[in-house]
């Protein structure tokens, strides 16, 4: 059914529903982006950690522990 045949009230309701769906989708996309970023950062961190000497690991652990 084309939107030309819908009543104004129906269209307003439909628009509200679609806006809500869009909002939810955007929130989900944002949450997924944050999670992907987090995983990417962890992958990078693991690779960098593998390049550190035992002394550097210890020094960095202490430095990070101080930051809380």
């Amino acid at each position, binding site marked *: 059914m084309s939107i030309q045949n819908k009543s104004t009230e129906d269209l307003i309701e439909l628009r509200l529903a679609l806006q809500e769906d869009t909002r939810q989708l955007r929130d989900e996309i944002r949450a997924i982006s944050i999670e992907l970023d*987090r995983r990417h950062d962890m992958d990078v961190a693991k690779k*960098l950690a593998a390049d550190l000497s035992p002394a550097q*690991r210890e020094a*960095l652990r202490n430095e*990070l522990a101080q*930051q809380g």
Partner: protein
Amino acid sequence: MPIQTLSVAREKTVVALILNGRRVMAMPWQTADELRLAIREQTRAARAGTVTAEITIRSGSAVLSVRHEGGLVLLIGDGRLLIDMPPIIAERLWRSILVQARKAEEVAKAGQIALDQALLIRSGAFFGLTDHPVIRAEAIKEAGHNRLLRSAIPSIRSTEVFGVPVVSHETRSPYLQLRDLAARMPRDQRRAVLATLAKGP
């Protein structure tokens, strides 16, 4: 003449010439730009064998002159010959100075660049004016929160995630990279990094 090493260094907005490990001259980016133009001109003249006047550049108390003689480009500091080099080396030198001068200029004008970049981001033009991470971060903040920009270009939701794709070349040590990465992470993720470090290789 024994083997000489000449390099160009930069500390924030200052460009320095280092000869055999010793700092010969430190100058603001504007002076560095003048110097690279002088070296470029003398390099071209040395190649072509044309006669040109010596070019003198002053920065604070230091005086640096550039001229060419017998096909070589000469750098003279306070009346003493610092180094003479064939045009091919002189060209590498002025190109290095150019790169460092541009970087120094970028730092000196960081605030303006960040605002310009913010305007571009907000207007939807997704290309980068800079690949300096701090300036980019500032631009993203400005694009999202600058009141004047938001009222002038209100079409973008202020909660939208902004970003500009860049190619960056990482030259820092893994230690510094990991330290900075962890510092940007939320606390729970930082703990995960700590656990990774504790596990050992």
